[in-house]
C-alpha cells in the first residue's frame, strides 16, 4: 500500500477517533449503546491572548434540535 496521505490532513489521534467511531457504529445494539458512552466528549476550549481569554469554542458543536411541538396548541 502506498504511504498514507492522511498524515497531511489530521493527527494520529483524529485518525484513531475516526476508526473508533466506525467500530462503535458497527457493533450490535446493546454493545453499541454501551460503547457510545465511551466516545462522548463535550469539550470546549478557548485561546488566550496576553492574559485575556478569547471566545469559547465547542470541539464538537452540539446538534441543533428543533423544539418539540407541545400538545397544547
Amino acid at each position, binding site marked *: 500500500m502506498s504511504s498514507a496521505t492522511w498524515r497531511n490532513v489530521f*493527527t494520529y489521534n483524529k485518525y484513531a477517533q475516526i476508526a473508533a467511531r466506525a467500530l462503535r457504529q458497527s457493533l450490535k445494539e446493546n454493545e453499541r449503546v454501551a460503547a457510545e458512552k465511551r466516545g462522548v466528549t463535550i469539550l470546549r476550549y478557548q485561546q488566550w491572548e496576553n492574559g485575556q*481569554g478569547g471566545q469559547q469554542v465547542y470541539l464538537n458543536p452540539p446538534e441543533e434540535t428543533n423544539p418539540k411541538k407541545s400538545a397544547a396548541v
Partner: protein
Amino acid sequence: MLARRTLGRIAAQPPVLGAAPSGSRNMATLREIELRLKSVRNIEKITKSMKMIASTKLAKAQRAMQAGKQYGIANSEVFEHSPVEESGKRRLFLVISSDKGLCGGIHSSVSKAARRALADKDAPVESDTPVMVIGDKAKAQLARAAGKNIVMSFNQIGRDIPTFADAAGVADLIIKSGVKYDIVTIVYNQFVSALSYEATTMQVESESALKESPGFKAYEMEDDVTKDLAEFSLANAIYATLVESHACEQSARRNAMDNASKNATDMISKLQMQYNRGRQAAITNELVDIITGASAL
C-alpha cells in the same frame, strides 16, 4: 410550642423598667437561634446527600482510574528507555483540574504546584513558558498568578468520568495550536489513598525530543511512526492523568462534605443546647415576674 406561648406572654406584658431590654434581647436571641438551627439543619441534609453522591461516584471513578493508569504506564515504558536531558528544553505545562468546586484543596494544590514549577530555581523555565489549563477553577487561579503565560484553556471535562475522546481532543488541540515545545509537563493530582492526594507531574516528550534522545535510536522507527507515537503518547498521558485527577476530586469532595456534615452536626447540638437554655431562662424570668407580682398583692 411552650417557648412561643412564653414569648407571646412576655410581649403582652407592659414593659417594666430595666426588664424590657433583657426580655426583648432574649426574645430576639431565641428567634435568631431558632432560625440558625433551621438553616444549619438544612445545610447538614444537603452536605450529607452530596457526600453520598460523591462516594458512589468515587467507586466508579476508582475503577476507571485503575484501568486508565495502564495507559500511563505503557507510555512511560518508552520514555524510560529514551530519557531526555532536561537542560535547554522548551516546556509546555498542562494543568489538570475541573470546573466544579466544593472539593477541598484540589484546585489550589494543582495551581500551587504549577506556580512552584514556573518559579523553580533549580530547573529554571523561561518566563514565557506556555501554560494550558483544563478546568475553570484552576484557570481562574492561574489567570491571576501567571496570566501572561496561558495559551489555551479547556472546560466541560470532569462532569462524568473523562473519556479517551476527551484526552484525544485535548492532545489534538495542543498539537494543532502550533505552540513550540520539547516536553509537556502535566501537573495533576495523584491518588495516594481515599483520604489523601498529592500534586505531581508527568513528562511527555514530543516528537523532536524523542528523536534526539540517545536511547530512542535503538528502536529504529520511521519518522512517520515516531510522529504518530508522540501524538498518541500525549493523548495516553492526558487520559491517565485526567482519570486519576477525577478520582482524586471525587474523594476530596466526599471528604470535604463529610467534614462539613460533621461540623454541621456539632453546630446543631451546640445551638440546640443554647436554645434550650435560653428557653428555660425565659420561662424562669416569667415565673419570677409572676411570683413577685403575686407576692406584692
